[in-house]
């Protein structure tokens, strides 16, 4: 059986003054239809790039090895028309900052119906459908909203509109790239709840990128932890706290505000976050790992049984 979405030893090199360097080293991940997977990790770990690779959006000059397969089709083999079809019909993306990613001078109605109109739907039918989705996700006063422009809406409301636009195309997969980072904490929960509820109802798969472990575990079935262009651990969201085995995952869990009593200093992950370009040749986490051994610095650990760590080999 072919996986719904599969990253198969995906490696992406970008040109640097020192020659090509990897930003993604070896990403292995399979997502089932209708499944929600959270992709967490520090800045520069390659989360966004992993999501973007699904849509064939790689930085200029990047070379790719391995493959991303969506429903069995290697994204790398798609031509421009195939990519456009994939982007407009199969996969939708929700970005971090709704203010920046919506054309500021068009109305909300125009924005929501643009994809549908491209598919040949009439303006009134598209508006009715978009209005219905807005109402579904709890936006009130829909007729007025459709006539407003992005600057007239609050950030949280605008992000809901962006989610409605993503849902309107009835995609099989939604890529959410830190969809709540630009929002304040109270609206974050609302927006994530809407995304979660709607995708469950529609059976849409979700790749949810976040810095926020709590948020990711609340929304996702499984959590993939990324570090320096590699997935170091994959485990069910429910058992993230109890069953985390990789030293990096454990360090991330300790660094959350909830992990220490109020008033005490938060524990930090020692060292600075590394991208795939800077990471050491063996285990990517070796430089910052509290339990590092000699073997870790020379040999790349494979992702076996959900964790990529030499110390966890059964």
């Amino acid at each position, binding site marked *: 059986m072919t996986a719904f979405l599969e990253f198969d030893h995906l490696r992406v090199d970008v040109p640097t003054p020192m020659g090509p360097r990897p930003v993604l080293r070896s990403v292995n991940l399979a997502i089932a239809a209708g499944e929600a997977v959270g992709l967490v990790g520090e800045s520069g770990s390659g989360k966004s790039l992993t999501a973007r690779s699904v849509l064939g959006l790689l930085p200029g000059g990047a070379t790719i090895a391995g493959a991303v397969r969506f429903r069995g089709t290697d994204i790398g083999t798609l031509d421009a028309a195939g990519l456009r079809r994939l982007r407009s019909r199969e996969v939708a993306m929700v970005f971090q900052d709704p203010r*920046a*990613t919506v*054309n500021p*001078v068009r109305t909300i109605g125009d924005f929501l119906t*643009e994809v549908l109109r491209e598919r040949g739907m009439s303006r009134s039918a598209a508006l009715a459908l978009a209005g219905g989705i807005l109402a579904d996700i709890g936006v009130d006063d829909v007729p007025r909203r459709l006539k407003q422009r992005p600057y007239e809406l609050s950030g949280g409301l605008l992000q809901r509109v962006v989610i409605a636009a993503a849902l309107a195309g009835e995609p099989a997969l939604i890529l959410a790239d830190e969809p709540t980072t630009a929002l304040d904490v109270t609206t974050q929960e609302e927006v994530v709840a809407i995304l979660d509820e709607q995708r469950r109802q529609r059976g849409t798969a979700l790749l949810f990128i976040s810095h926020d472990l709590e948020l990711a575990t609340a929304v996702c079935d499984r959590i993939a932890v990324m570090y320096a262009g590699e997935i170091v651990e994959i485990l069910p969201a429910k058992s993230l706290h109890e069953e985390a085995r990789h030293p990096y995952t454990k360090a991330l869990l300790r660094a959350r505000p909830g992990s220490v009593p109020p008033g005490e200093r938060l524990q930090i992950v020692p060292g600075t976050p590394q991208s795939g370009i800077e990471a050491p040749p063996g285990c990517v986490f070796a430089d910052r790992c509290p339990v590092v051994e000699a073997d870790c610095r020379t040999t790349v650990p494979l992702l076996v049984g959900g964790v990529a760590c030499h110390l966890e080999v059964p």
Partner: protein
Amino acid sequence: MTLALAAPLRLPARRLAALGWASSLAGLICALVVLIAVFAPWIAPHDPNAVDPLNAYAPLSAAHPLGTDDLGRDLLSRLILGSRTSLAGPLVVIVLSGATGTALAVSAAWIGGWFDAAVSRVLDILFAFPGLVLAITVAALFGAGFLAPVVALSLAYVPIIARVMRAAALRERSLPYVEALRVQGFSGWHICRRHLLPNLAPLLVVQAAISFGYAMIDLASISFLGLGLQPPAADWGLMIANGQPSILAGFPQQSIAAAVAVVITVVAFTVVAERMAAR
């Protein structure tokens, strides 16, 4: 010509535009000039081409408010009719150069790479070539008249428009919403047509309006040199030139009236354009 004019004309125009009454007045003058041009044949008191040698060099009178020229033609009527070609020329220039310049600029900014480099270099070369000289050369080669100088000047104005539009298109293109549109699966053509161009339109209108005044001066200069419209057509630039012998005869009205018309119109349009640019 255009470059040399740019500084002396734009700065005072900008100052005038900052004054409320001046920009209102300029707007009024623009509207008036356009109305006169549209309804010229009905407004003109006499046939602009009716020759009356016995009445040549008639002084200012009720019948001939600006007097008559060396052939006895009514100057006011000629001035009114002349507004048509004098406005139509620059209008065609900004429409042609605006459309071509914007199309080039947006496609260069969008496609990028070698195409952008090639377009930009060609525009630079065109930019280095004085527009007026280009127009005069083309008019000399293809024959004087309305079309040749106007088309040549349009070509010369393409880089002026295209430079500004390319910079704006590049900035617009780099905005996240454009990438979001690509992620939604829209083609480059769709994004350019439905998003980039509408968002750039206000800038284009301002650029075109500013260019209008310069194009008018350039075309009047070409007519003055005898390479534009030919007699007996009534055209402001031509009228200035044809009035020259009369000045020596002690009848400077024709040149003065036509020159004043050019100056007032150019200043009015430029002030309005600067007012729009400031918004």
